[in-house]
């Protein structure tokens, strides 16, 4: 799952190495709200889930591990 998520992140931000940048994705402004919109849409498609609006908050997307945790909640 982690690899699949990293692949999605890489597709949205090709210039970032997400194997080296796994944490503080929002805090360090690696991802902005418009990147999140694309990433959420791609994740929903890849895992066939529908992430609820109240889960779309910065802290759920601030690291790869937190994104994995969020996706697991829906599977």
């Amino acid at each position, binding site marked *: 799952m982690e690899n699949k998520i990293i692949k999605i992140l890489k597709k949205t931000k090709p210039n970032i190495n997400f194997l080296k940048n796994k944490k503080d994705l929002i805090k360090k402004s690696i991802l*902005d709200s418009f990147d999140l919109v694309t990433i959420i*849409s791609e994740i929903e498609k890849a895992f066939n889930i529908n992430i609820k609006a109240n889960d779309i908050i910065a802290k759920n997307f601030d690291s790869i591990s937190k994104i994995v945790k969020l996706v697991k909640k829906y599977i």
Partner: protein
Amino acid sequence: MKLKFYNKKITGILSILPKNKVYFKDEMNNYNFTKKQSLKLAKIMGYSTRRVVNKKTSVSDLCVFGLNYLFKNKLLKKDKVDALILVTQSPDYFLPPTSNVISGKINLRSDVICLDINQGCAGYEVGLIQAFMLLEQKSISKVVILNADILSKKVSIKDRNSRPLIGDGASITIVEKSKTKEEINVYIKMDGKKYDSLIIPAGAFKQPTNSNTKNLKKDKFGNSRSLENLLMKGDDIFNFIITKIPEMLKEMYKDLKIKKEYFDYFFFHQPNKFILEKLANTIEIPNSKLPSNIVENFGNGSGITVPLNICFNLGSKAKKNNYKVCLGGFGVGLTWSIIACNIKKLSFCKIIEFKK
């Protein structure tokens, strides 16, 4: 704040759109994205076609064009208008009020009350509240609400957060006293602590225009805008809408002892397709009852999205039928409001093009 009004009704809605269409595909090279990323985001957010005015067109031009259309087609009698409310964030001048300018251009009586209100995304609901309050007066029988904005002029060409969304336009809504029993329930809240979530920081009196306020500065995500451009904090707005609107709806359902199924339609402001679809999902309203097709066809025209939504999605059906509707506006201020009312056999409900 909860407000209740009786025996007032909307009797006609006209939307006025600039004929000039701008396509996202033609603009996407301005933004800091690859073509593939841009097209993906366009699909999710609903970026496609926006209507924008030319350099010379002002809010009063759009409104006067629409009002003259109504007079010419005998849909509104000039001497029957008792009040003219203009809701806009893009007035012709700092002073005088643009509603006075419009009144002069269409030659209204001098005892017609003209009011300008500075509101945006919830501007349709705020305008309706003001109209309902005026109609409590014996001497006022017919109020004309004008919602109009031309904010495309204030969005940086290099701002991919806001530029592809913003559209221009106007709408005219006629509100009158009703002889049949009508109950209208209004919910409205404001949070001025978040005033800077959607803001044009400079150009008024707090921070007047100077050479620095015109300089484009790049933010950490690659968007360039000046202090005289619209600034939208996307994540603040998303979280605000997703939290506050479901709360307000729950409060209304409880107070009125109704369920969501009571309404035929939810005509909400349309900031972008992503937010609206997530909101619809959260409040469990099917897309067929909560249209989300305004941004992709016309752009987000601030306070005009709700009346335009009604004209685009109901159109002439609104002349024949009765609908129980929930109107919703949310955004700049921050301000959020919902209104439970009826759309009953309107005398007109259509879109016209401003052809100048």
